[in-house]
């Protein structure tokens, strides 16, 4: 067993910590940083509830050790709203289009959708469905999740510079 000093940025804030090598990133975020918006679902890398953004990639934080995030830039659901606290386009889409019921998958869905739209600002329905295929939702049947992401895509087109920077 080894311990490691890590330094990273979480939601734009610098964080330093000493972590045991086997500590998973999701446990680090939830239990050491108290960022409990990132959920643990299946804990086997399938469901995507633990999705966060790391170095411009959507990753499953239950399949990554905290020590692997040394030097990384991480965004969690707590960091996805605008600086003034208003909802981002993706959050607004999920709210207005009823893209959630129980809400358990939602943080992961929103993080994934935000990254998807940064890579592909004008996705087809098929591309949206493929894009969130690593995120399972057992409530909605995905219809309204697709609509939520379509809403966000349309909204981002209206104000591309401000929103795309988020």
């Amino acid at each position, binding site marked *: 067993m*080894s311990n490691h000093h890590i330094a990273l940025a979480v939601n734009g804030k610098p964080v330093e910590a000493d972590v045991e*090598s086997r500590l998973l990133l999701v446990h680090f975020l939830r239990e050491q940083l108290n960022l409990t918006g990132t959920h643990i679902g299946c804990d086997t890398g*399938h469901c995507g509830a633990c999705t966060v953004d790391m170095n411009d990639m959507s990753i499953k934080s239950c399949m990554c050790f905290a020590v692997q995030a040394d030097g990384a830039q991480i965004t969690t659901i707590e960091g996805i709203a605008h600086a003034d606290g208003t909802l981002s386009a993706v959050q607004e889409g999920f709210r207005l289009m009823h893209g959630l019921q129980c809400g358990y998958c939602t943080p992961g869905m929103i993080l994934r959708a935000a990254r998807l739209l940064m890579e592909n600002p004008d996705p087809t329905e098929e591309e949206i469905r493929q894009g969130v295929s690593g995120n399972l939702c057992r409530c909605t049947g995905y219809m309204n999740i697709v609509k939520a992401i379509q809403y966000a895509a349309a909204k981002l087109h209206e104000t591309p510079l401000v929103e795309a920077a988020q």
Partner: protein
Amino acid sequence: MIPGAFDYHRPTSVNEAALLLRQLGEDARPLAGGHSLIALMKLRLAMPEHLVDLSGVDGLKGVRREGDDLVIGAMTTQHDIIHDAMLAESLPILRETANQIADPQVRYRGTIGGNVANGDPGNDMPAVMQCLDARFRIASPDGEREISARDFYHGAFDTELHRGDIVTEIRIKAPPRGHGYAYEKMKRKTGDYATAAAAVILTLEGGRCARASVALTNVADTPLWAEEASKILAGSDLGKETLDRAAAAAEAITNPASDLHGPAEFRAKMAGVMLRRAVMRAQARAKA
């Protein structure tokens, strides 16, 4: 789920990594994308005492051309492969395959080196590498060597790799311009391992198949290069009778397990079906 305790190492060169793996012995594992290894560690089906993280090793990422070869660094991710313009033009079967592996999050992290080196019969790239007659470049403290993908796999999780070996790159002689290609994968759901899958590369000349190569995924404890089926297709008109014979030859070399993907007989039959579909799609894509 919390994995067993281990020491974490992050070497910065191939030499350093290979020496570490050699010195630390059987209880050390290289770590690439981690989506096979960390999952096993959480279930405590794997309890390595040392992880040697290859993410900080210089020079293992990226795609380049060297003469007739396309060279892909082992730590190049599936996401990188999907978005690489050179591969899209010269080896589009890699994008087609990578897009059928797992899901977007896994593809950001999962590497082509990990996919081919792990020896998991469910992985998709090994059969594609056999289809393309790829070579794996392997570094060790004793020096470097190259092994054909067709000679690399001995059994489930049993490959040519020994302690201290690291797959550093994959070398593929690009098929001719205008070649046809397809990776047809039957799976129960998005992101799943194949029930059966077939990779096909072929070239057409005057409407007939000049050359063909076929390989199969997850219908034996190793990927299978279907040599006999490839020979049947080459020189043929790719008509129904040829496809029947090629499919039968491919099915004959399979030895799938009966498991959640279906009974063995079904999976063997599906290998033939995937072969037919892959050949037809490759033919439609090929320029005569």
